[in-house]
């Protein structure tokens, strides 16, 4: 599971008010390289919950990857930024699309229900009494 998906995912257990953001507890994660597409990031950025994304990177033990506050768009999409190693857009791209959580769990903030992640697939199935 990439952090992009984690950023979109909310829990719908009975009793959860928003079920968002799910607390990430990662035991194992890997990185896989993906081509950067600035237009995709541009379209995606307004939909990203920055706080949840930063919290997720911290949970993975990467406190340096993203700043607390979202950098201004002009900085992220500055001319040629995509080619500069360590630029904001590169870091965002890396955080969203290149990190794959393999083992761990997602915890609902409202009900503390734990969804295990196995081989990179979160198990979001609910029991009958949780629907």
């Amino acid at each position: 599971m990439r952090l992009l998906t984690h950023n979109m995912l909310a829990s719908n257990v009975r009793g959860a008010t928003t079920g968002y953001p799910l607390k990430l507890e990662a035991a194992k994660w890997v990185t896989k390289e993906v081509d950067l597409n600035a237009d995709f990031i541009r379209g995606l950025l307004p939909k990203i919950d920055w706080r949840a994304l930063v919290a997720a990177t911290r949970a993975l033990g990467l406190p340096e990857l993203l700043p607390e506050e979202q950098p201004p768009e002009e900085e992220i999409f500055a001319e040629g930024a995509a080619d500069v190693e360590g630029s904001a857009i590169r870091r965002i791209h890396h955080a969203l699309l290149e990190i794959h959580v393999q083992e761990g769990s997602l915890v609902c903030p409202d009900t503390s229900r734990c969804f295990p992640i196995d081989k990179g697939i979160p198990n979001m199935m609910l029991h009958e009494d949780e629907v």
Partner: protein
Amino acid sequence: MPRPEFQAPPDVFYNESEARKYTTSSRIIEIQSRISERALELLSLPNDGVPKLLLDIGCGSGLSGETLTEHGHHWIGYDISKSMLDVALERETEGDLLLADMGQGLGLRPGVIDGAISISAVQWLCNADKSSHDPRLRLKAFFGSLYRCLARGARAVLQFYADNVKQSEMIVTFAMRAGFAGGVVVDWPHSSKAKKSYLVLTCGPPSINTLLPKGKGENGEMCSDDEDDGSSDEDGDKTVGIYERNRSKKRQKTKKNGKGKDWLLKKKEQMRRRGHDVPADTKYTGRKRKTYF
């Protein structure tokens, strides 16, 4: 062969051996990717080369997702069968996979998804595989959560095999109730094998975008042979209910007086609610047989 929906719940039916077919059978692979291509075409995403974030509901082994990847899109796949998702892992699909039941709602933040496709999955919602399942509630939860997670103006294309007209009506009704605009596009309506129904839904109020595209082969043209080698195991074949015959001898005996007309009418109503094809109630319904029968 009876349709999969009649055999077992999806998480049971798509076991390891069934899932294996989705890597080995070139016929299944070809049909799946052809349907996915068509679904993506009906999704009519803007042709600007910008990748989109899409959903694949009932992604299974990721065959339909591969089509999305080929077009450069990112996708999140939902499936209820662990075995199918294991196959998807083996195939190293690009999308993110989630083990989840679409009848419980999708559990996504509102307005974040650019489009959704689903290949041969929605009809499973019409089945009540557990006593706690109510098809109506499950359809409502599914379409409601789908509507919420899609961005305004985004489309969802859901290919499905309805067992009968009522089932198809039920699916469409719940989609409309969730707020979607759109309807069903039928490709090759005159062919029993190649016929495919796509529920094309648009999020938001009716506009030029919500106009339904035309189905293929609607004006009588026939599909070519290679289109026709369609999925005979998935559509067309109607089967008679065999469950009554398979009951053990002991259970076949009913009480002397039977269960009565009221009980029968209640059961028929129940089956109707689940979208099954049930004969109409007549004066013959639940009538006592003559003794010399």
